[in-house]
Each structure stands twice: as structure tokens, then as C-alpha cells.
């Protein structure tokens, strides 16, 4: 891994988060001090900080940022300490890597999202590097941006890549395969059999165990029961807190700040199973609990309760989450929050590895479109969450790269209507690149949808005048 300042996405993030680390919590927290903090922070960070540290979520936002900075800086210094940096996709349980002393996980989608949210010029320049190689322009920007930064040889390079997308997403698997060949980085796999019979699940455990032994050999360290137990126990704590927040979501108006949807999976994909992860979840629970007690809600009233069935949009410096909340549109979570964690039995090595396999099996995307049917498991989950949290609409971001979801979205739409009578808004726009669809268009579509379709009864509309006798020549 290349050290020092370079124009690469990861290295720029490291640079910024060193600064964040230096700003003491109280300074970040104190409302007045925020602005001050913004001034001392590089301007790139300012707009994102506005969203991440918005009053309604600040208590947790600070902890979340600190967690990410720890994660990033740790990975950066890992190389110096002779540790292995392992690049994983979002649908891989990072806690497994955390359980090794001599390895740290980095998640490409999280890096891309942070880069897009925080860095000046966002991801475009790294995307263009990938396009410059002749790669298709309908690839997954969530991966292509961070990997593009590596492909341009501007950025750090991981010691190995784990691909857990085979079976869940071709694009993701393919771009990781490309990077591993192009940069000559060893690649490991955890493939998902699209098989709902018990057979598929058993086979998945086999794959998981093979992967673990491959990793042990590569990292040069045996996975120890104690280290693993330590991580899993923290993961279990995160699981409890995850479901606390889940239950808060049921209250109306929604006491959980919209942006927590992002914080929740941001934590799942990075520091799940680490003390910092637990702290972030605790902070979120605290904020939600207080807001519930005060019956507080940022807008006058909650007009719509929206479930996002896949990803949200991140290219507008996280502004959309709070914009929705200001309009009275509650964001009850993304498809990426649908990883339904479970308490893992820590009694034996074997039970813990089984538990890990189970969590991986239930990771977002893997669990839904990675199922035997791309639409069935996905529909079941969305219907379940919509019913549980009594949502009154579902929104699909329509990232043009997500071919698996796009190919069955019409089935999801029909099933939502048939089973719950819920409307689905199908948006179209790249979640990480602003040049596909401007955020103003996205906002307008959401507005039109909610005012016309979702909140038709509550929003005051002009009445169409009574029909006069229609002239026959008109008929």
C-alpha cells in the first residue's frame, strides 16, 4: 500500500479524517461550535458535515464520523505495521476480518460513498479513469469509483480482494475480477448459490469455511476462538441495538432521523463487531429515544412514511435524507438496511462460524436478489418491512447499473400493489454520480409522487369543478 499523500480517493479520505480525528468531540457537538468546526475543516467537508451533523442527528453523527475516521486511519497505518489490507464488498461481513490481528477490512462501496459525500469533485475523476480503460458506462459506480482510483494507480492498493457478489450481482463481481487481474491482486470468493433449498444454505457454509482457511493461510494467522468471540459478542450487541432502532421506526411520527438509515448500514459495512460500531448504534438509540419522548419531528407533520427498497442517493452530499425530513417525508430505511442480523451463539468456534455464514447469507442484496428467485425474497422482505413499519409508499432509486433489480422491479411493483395496495415510485438515477439525474429532478419526482399519490387525502388539492352537461360534439 502506497503511503503519503496521493491524489487517490482513499489517501484523500485519510488526509481529511486525520483532521476530523483532531477535532475534539465537544467541539464537534456544540451547536455554536459546529460552524467554527466547519471553518477549521477543509471546505470539501463542510457541505457533507452540514448533513451528517444536522441538529436532529448530531449526537450520533459525531460518533459515526469518529467511527469512520478510526476505520480509515487504522487501515492506512495497517500497512506500516505489516498487516494485510483486504478489500471487501458491502455484502461481506467485515467482522470476520476484524477477528484477525494481522488484517483489516476496507469496503469499496463505503469508500466510494464517503468519497462522493466528502471530497471535492466527488467521484467523477475516478469514474473517468475507469471509463478511460474502455469499461462500459453502465457499471456500478459504487465500486467503479473506488476501484477506478486504484486502476489509475493513483491510490493505495489492497493486499487482497474478497468478492462475495457472485450469485447476487454480476456487475459487482465483474469489476472486482477486473481489478484483481488488472492490478494483479489475489482474489478470494464467497459465492451465493441462488438456491432456497436447505442445500444451498449448507453449501454456503462449505464456501465460508473454505474461504476462512484460505484467508488464514494468506494472512498467516489462525482464527482464534477468543478473538472471534470478542468480535461476535460486540456484533451481537449491535444486533440488539439494530432491533431497538427497528422498533423505534414503528412510531409515528418517525422518531428516527432519516439519515440513520445510512448510519445503520454504514456501520454494518465497516465497524460491525467493533467497540466503535457498538458506540454508534448506542448513540443512535439515544437520539431516537429522546426524540420519541419529546414527540419531536423536524417538519410540521409526517406526510409520508417511505421505505427505499434498494439504495438511496448519496451524490448530493447526503442532502436528500434531511431534505425529505424537512418536507415531512420519513425515510424508514433502505434495502441496504435489510440484513436482519441475528444473535450468534458464541459457545463454540463452530457455532460462531455457522453464525457468520448465516449473517453473510442474510446480507443485503445477497439475501434478496441473490435468492433462488430474484423477485420473491426481495418482495417478501420489502412487504415485511413496509407492513411492520406501516409505510405508505416504497421508493426505488433505479440506479441504472443494478440490472438484477431492474429486471424484476415490475414484479415487485405489482406484488406491492396486490399484497399491500402500496404504490412504488420508480426513480432513475445513479446513486453516486450526479451527472445521471440532477437531484432537483429526483426531489421533484418524489414531491409529485407523494403529493399526488401517497398523501392525496392529507394534502389539500384544488377540486375539479362539477361537470356541466358535456356537449355531444365533444364525445
Amino acid at each position, binding site marked *: 500500500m502506497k503511503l503519503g499523500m496521493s491524489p487517490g480517493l482513499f489517501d484523500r479520505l485519510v488526509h481529511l479524517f486525520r483532521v476530523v480525528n483532531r477535532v475534539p468531540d465537544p467541539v464537534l457537538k456544540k451547536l455554536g461550535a459546529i460552524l467554527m468546526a466547519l471553518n477549521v475543516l477543509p471546505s470539501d467537508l463542510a457541505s457533507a458535515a452540514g448533513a451528517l451533523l444536522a441538529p436532529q442527528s448530531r449526537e450520533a453523527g459525531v460518533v459515526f464520523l469518529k467511527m469512520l475516521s478510526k476505520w480509515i486511519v487504522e487501515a492506512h497505518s495497517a500497512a506500516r505495521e505489516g498487516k494485510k489490507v483486504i478489500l471487501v464488498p458491502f455484502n461481506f461481513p467485515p467482522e470476520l476480518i476484524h477477528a484477525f490481528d494481522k488484517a483489516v477490512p476496507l469496503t469499496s462501496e463505503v469508500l466510494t460513498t464517503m468519497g462522493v459525500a466528502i471530497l471535492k469533485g466527488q467521484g467523477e475523476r475516478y469514474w473517468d479513469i475507469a471509463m*478511460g480503460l474502455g469499461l462500459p*458506462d453502465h457499471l456500478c459506480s459504487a465500486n467503479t469509483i473506488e476501484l477506478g482510483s486504484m486502476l489509475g494507480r493513483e491510490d493505495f492498493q489492497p493486499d487482497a480482494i474478497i468478492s462475495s457478489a457472485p450469485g447476487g450481482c454480476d456487475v459487482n463481481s465483474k469489476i472486482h475480477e477486473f481489478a484483481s487481474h488488472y492490478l494483479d491482486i489475489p482474489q478470494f470468493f464467497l459465492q451465493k448459490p441462488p438456491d432456497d433449498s436447505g442445500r444451498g444454505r449448507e453449501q454456503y457454509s462449505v464456501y465460508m469455511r473454505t474461504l476462512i482457511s484460505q484467508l488464514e493461510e494468506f494472512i498467516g494467522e489462525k482464527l482464534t476462538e477468543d478473538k472471534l468471540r470478542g468480535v461476535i459478542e460486540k456484533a451481537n450487541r449491535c444486533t440488539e441495538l439494530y432491533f431497538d432502532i427497528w422498533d423505534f421506526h414503528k412510531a409515528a411520527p418517525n422518531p428516527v432521523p432519516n439519515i440513520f438509515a445510512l448510519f445503520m448500514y454504514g456501520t454494518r459495512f465497516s465497524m460491525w463487531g467493533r467497540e466503535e460500531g457498538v458506540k454508534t448504534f448506542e448513540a443512535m438509540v439515544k437520539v431516537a429515544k429522546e426524540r420519541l419522548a419529546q414527540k419531536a419531528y423536524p417538519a410540521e407533520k409526517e406526510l409520508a412514511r417511505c421505505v427505499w427498497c434498494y439504495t438511496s442517493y448519496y451524490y448530493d452530499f447526503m442532502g436528500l435524507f434531511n431534505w425529505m425530513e424537512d418536507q415531512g417525508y420519513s425515510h424508514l430505511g433502505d434495502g441496504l438496511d435489510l440484513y436482519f442480523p441475528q444473535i450468534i451463539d458464541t459457545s463454540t468456534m463452530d457455532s460462531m462460524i455457522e453464525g457468520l455464514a448465516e449473517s453473510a447469507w442474510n446480507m443485503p442484496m445477497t439475501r434478496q436478489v441473490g435468492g433462488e428467485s430474484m423477485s420473491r425474497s426481495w418482495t417478501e422482505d420489502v412487504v415485511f418491512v413496509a407492513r411492520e413499519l406501516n409505510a405508505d409508499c416504497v421508493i426505488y432509486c433505479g440506479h441504472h447499473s443494478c440490472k438484477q433489480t431492474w429486471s424484476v422491479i415490475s414484479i415487485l411493483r405489482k406484488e406491492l400493489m396486490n399484497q399491500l395496495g402500496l404504490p412504488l415510485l420508480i426513480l432513475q438515477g445513479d446513486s453516486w454520480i*450526479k451527472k*445521471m439525474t*440532477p437531484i432537483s429532478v429526483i426531489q421533484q419526482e418524489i414531491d409529485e409522487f407523494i403529493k399526488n399519490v401517497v398523501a392525496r387525502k392529507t394534502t389539500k388539492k384544488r377540486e375539479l369543478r362539477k361537470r356541466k352537461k358535456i356537449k355531444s360534439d365533444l364525445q
Partner: protein
Amino acid sequence: MFFAGIDIGSLTAQAVVIKNGKIIGAKTISVLPHPVDSAKEVIDRLLSKQEIKWEDIKCAVSTGYGREKIQQEGLTRENISEISCHGLGAYTINPNIRTVIDIGGQDAKVIKVNQSGKLDNFVMNDKCAAGTGHFLEVMSKTLGVSLDELGPMSRKSRKPVEMSNRCTIYVETEVIHFLQQGVSKIDIAAGINRAMAERVVALARRVEPEKEIMMTGGVAKNVAVKSEIEKTLKVKMVKSKIDPQIMGAYGAALFAQKQEGAK
């Protein structure tokens, strides 16, 4: 001995007549719906200003979108792709040229030629592309300025607008919206040219462009786009001695001359 090259593009048609390598006449018109009509028209308009008649042309080669039809009509002996023609044309004008950027109405191309002027490699836009002459044409219409003004005017721009769309179709309404908000045409034009340059650069990156670069095609006349590309690619474009827009037809004429020499 006279040789002719005819380049029927999607927006404009050019004809060039050469005598041992030297251009003795050239003409550009905007295309008629049918390529053969365009070809006949441009030839007539060209020859009307010369003492030579079509019969005096020893051999002619056609290129551009209409190249095949023209040949089938017997107007030319052969048809050669615009990529080869622009390559040879640029190389003949300056043998140091190794990379040619040609932005036509429908296709943007980056062409590499070797030390003997032969086609080495090339890339063309097949992605979501604002990088075509058509894009600029539509935009200048929307802005209500002529295509030639688009470049010069943007030099006065202080803060070019940022286009929030990749797609030509959507950029068009974006421009209308900017105008409605009273943004100055100068800044919009600058934004358009920048967007254009960005797309071309992204394409050029696919074949490592070498230092000696020449830009051909109508867009080469757009100073703003040209300098934007120079800035981002960190190169200095070699200036063409002839009108860059007739490069394709010139190259075709050179091929016609080769043909004759060949037999």
C-alpha cells in the same frame, strides 16, 4: 492530374480537388437529406469556381456517412472510412502528427497514425456521448447564436455553468432552464464547450494520445473546446494549415491520388 475527395457527413458535405498533393479547390455545404444529392451539389458548387470539369478528375474517393452510396452511384471509384482519411490528411499536412482528434456530427474519433502515416489505432464514442458536433449544433440553436460564435464568446466567461447532465437530450432543456433563470449566454456557452471537451478527453484517454496532436473536423474551429482539451490533456494542438473541416475530403483526395499511383 486532378484528384478529388468527397466527404458526406451527417451535418455538412465537403469536396476537395488536389493536383499533386496541393489543394486547388475546396467547398463545404450543409447536407441535403440524401447523400447523393449532397455529393452532386457540393461538386457542382466547387467546380463552378474552377476551370476544371468533373471529367478532368482522374480519380475520386468518397468518405463519411454517405461514402458507400456515392460509390455505388459511380461518382467515386472507392470509399474509405473517415478515420483513415482524417489520419492521412493530418499526417500529410504535418508528418510529426501521431494523434488526430476528429469530432464529426455523429461520432467523435481519436485516431493514431504511425511514422509513415498509416492507421495505427482509433477509438470512437459509443457511450452516453455529448461529444459530437451535433451536440454543439443543437446547443447553439438553443442559445440562439451561430455555431462559429459559440467558441469565441465563451472566452469572456467568468464562471462557466456546470451541466448537471451527461445526456445531450437533457442538457438541452437544462440550457433553456439556465436561460430562463437569466444566466448569461456567455457562461452557458462556456459550460457547453467545457462539457464537450470533457467527453472528448475521456475518449482520448483510451488511446494514450501523443504530444503531436491535431484536431480536425468542424469543431476544431471552436477555440474554447480546443483550449479546454489542451488544458486537460496537457498538450499543445498542432495548427492545421488548411481548414480542419475539409480534412476528411482532403484525405480522401490523397487516397485517390495513391490509387492512381498504385496502378
